[in-house]
Structure formats: C-alpha cells, structure tokens
C-alpha cells in the first residue's frame, strides 16, 4: 500500500501542481473570510 512519496527538487511539474492547489485554497479562504466577516457582524448586531 502506497503511503508516502518523495518529490525531487528538480521535479518542477509536481511542485507546481501543489502550488496550484495552495493558490486555489488561499483564494477560497479569502472569499470565505469575507463571508464570515459579514456573518459575524450580523450575528453581533
């Protein structure tokens, strides 16, 4: 059963795959933070 992989520093394609994931996650987090801020204001109000 495969449990671990090790990516070589020269494996730019694999590294950029994970960078893309991180970028999209950061974008989603930012949008959710904006929604959350509105929700928290209305909750306090």
């Amino acid at each position: 059963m495969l449990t671990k992989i090790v990516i070589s520093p020269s494996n730019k394609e694999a590294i950029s795959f994970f960078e893309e994931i991180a970028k999209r996650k950061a974008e989603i987090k930012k949008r959710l933070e904006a929604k959350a801020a509105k929700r928290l204001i209305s909750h306090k109000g």
Partner: protein
Amino acid sequence: MIKDFYSYIKEEESDIISYSFLTITNALYYVYFDPYQYALHVEDYPNLLKLGYGFGFERMSKPSNWVEDPLIFSTISQIVFDFIQDNGNEVVLLYHCDNSDQKQKGRDKIFEDWYRKSELNTEIFKKRISICHRNSEDQEITMFMGYLTSESNQSKSQIEEEFQFFAENLVDKH
C-alpha cells in the same frame, strides 16, 4: 448516524458550495466543496475526479474560550454525510492539509484522529499519503493529501488504483 451536531447553513455559488455553523463558544466554521480544484485532471483520472471535489474546512473566528468541543467534528461529519447524500455515493472528496503556516502535520493528526473516532468511519472510506519535498530555502516540507468516499461507492477499488497511479505519476515526472 450522527447523534448530535450544530445547526448549519448551506450556500451555493457558481464555483463553490459551502456550509457554515457557529459553535457554542461563537467560533464560526466553514466547510467547503470545490468542484474546480482538480477539474483539469479529470481526463487522466476519470473515476477519481469525475465527481471529485476539493474538500476543506476552516475556523473563521476564535472561540470565546478554548474547550474541547466534540460537536465540531460531529457537525463536519454530518455535513460530509449530507453532501454525499445530496450528490451520490460516487462523490470523492479530495483534501490537502494547508501548509501555508507549517502546521500541516498537526492538521493531519487531528483529521486522522477525528476520522478514527467519527461515527462515519464505517460508512466513509479515507485514504491519505504524505508527500515530502525540499522547498527553495532547502527546508524539508511534508504535505498530506488524501480523499474520502462512501464505502458504498461502486468504483471504490478503481478510485484507489487511480489515486495510486496519480501519486506514481507525480513521482515519475522526474
């Protein structure tokens, strides 16, 4: 079935589905399902990604006091269960522990513990791998990635094969 959980709301936007709930200590959580995270790779991994969603959750506000709250993971479990019920047993939820603050190991451990204790672990299959690499500052980074799918997913074994193939492919790119 989940015995108890927080009430939650579901919001659908053009490119993301999110659920949110507020805990008794006023911590606001969002659970999200992103149909576009892996969409570019569907052709290569049809069973894994045909109904594949990027899955994650975030706490958006600090609790008023730090107490252990089992209802948080019960609620996330309920939301996962709800999402699979709405979208079918073929749904695959792919996750990648956030490593932007170097706390991915803790997140992986919490998520693993949650799964083991969860009322859903008999109904939901979880697979995860660790991925090690050195960043540009020559620091060793370990990331964690995996998926959840229903035990009733008829393509479960093909999905497992494709996930392994995906990992092998990443390594084989040099």
